[in-house]
């Protein structure tokens, strides 16, 4: 049956509308969970709050297990899902830049817009910096292009690269996630409690 859009169960004209609706709900939930606070987000790196890690890992797990069950039961064809292409070195360097930005500013791009919406001043500075970064990147694109288009691995997943059984991968990933939750809880108990809004 699914995915709904590629199989024409929902016409493609609804694409943008659905994207806007999902965006609204996502933003609302981010904000109401306190993810528009840079202190809460940066807590992952200082060890006093692991909410971000837990929330995103749990979301990934629920989606992963849920999709594999739906695929197994024939409700959705996993082979039809879009897999983002991998440009290895571009992803590694981009990841490092993103990580440094996350630690120093306390936002990731999505949460920064969420914080911007409720008028946080640090979010304004963050989004302004991001826009300047985008401008510099666009202007110097020819310089970055070899990195941007280089080491293209195709639309691969971890299962393709390491040639492992996807079901075993899901199981091992679940165990790792739970282990990380336990470890993060131990770390949080040892660090000094922070009070913030």
């Amino acid at each position, binding site marked *: 049956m699914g995915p709904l859009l590629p199989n024409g169960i929902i016409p493609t004209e609804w694409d943008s509308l659905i994207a806007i609706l999902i965006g609204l709900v996502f933003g609302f939930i981010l904000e109401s969970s306190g993810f528009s606070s840079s202190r809460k987000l940066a807590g992952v790196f200082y060890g006093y709050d692991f909410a971000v890690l837990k929330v995103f890992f749990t979301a990934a*797990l629920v989606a992963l*297990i849920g999709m*594999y*069950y739906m695929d*197994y039961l024939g409700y959705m064809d996993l082979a039809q899902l879009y897999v983002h292409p991998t440009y290895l070195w571009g992803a590694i360097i981009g990841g490092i830049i993103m990580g440094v930005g996350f630690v120093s500013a306390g936002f990731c791009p999505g949460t920064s817009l969420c914080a911007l919406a409720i008028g946080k001043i640090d979010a304004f500075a963050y989004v302004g910096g991001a826009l300047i970064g985008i401008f510099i990147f666009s202007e110097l694109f020819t310089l970055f292009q070899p990195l941007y288009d280089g080491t293209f691995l195709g639309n691969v997943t971890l299962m393709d690269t390491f040639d492992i059984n996807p*079901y*075993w991968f*899901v*199981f091992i*990933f*679940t*165990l790792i*996630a*739970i282990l990380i*939750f336990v470890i993060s809880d131990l770390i949080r108990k040892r660090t000094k409690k922070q009070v913030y809004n």
Partner: protein
Amino acid sequence: MVNRKLAKVSTFRYKILATVFIVLAGGLVLLPKHEKHEGIKPELLLANLISTERYISTDILADKIINNDPSFILIDVRNEESYSNFTIGDALNIPLEKFLDEVSINYLDQNQYDIIFISNDNFYAEQAWMLGSRLGFKNLHVLEGGINKWFNTIINPKKPTETMPEEQFVLYSNRKAASMFFGVAYPEQFKPAKKDKAIVKTKQPAPPKKVIKVKKKKKAPAEGGC
């Protein structure tokens, strides 16, 4: 009481959730696996099979060839002997037994051109279409009626009888024009020249007759006197 119990359970909530995750993920590993269907789904293949959209009529094909339409490739799926005897336009020859060769697949598995399969009738072209569709190739079509219908409609169109509707006459004149494009000569193509001469010849020896009016003498009224 209930609240206390709830509070007791809720202290274990993360452990419960973790267990649920492990059980569900373990279930995926332990569930019996079934062989997955490769290529397009049978339902979709059936829907394509029932639909007549894959057919292209000989008239449309003739129109495409005459107008040098660059958007399609003709593929003759008969054997090489039949292909060398006759084929339509500049069709490529991919006999069914060579359908899965690497060279053939390069032509067939693409998203740029419409592919029209031709054979003597629909039979082999349909088989090629079925194979290609099952493999997930796109833009595959079949020439309806094949080369036999091509002969009966484009190369040798039947003249409509007088009682047929006007559309049939229009269709006939189109088909006749198409057949002329493909090199068929009609006797009337040469007739007009002959006709002119014939008219001239007949006209010269027999110029229009001059009519000489002869005035008849009026009868004189009977004269008489009283």
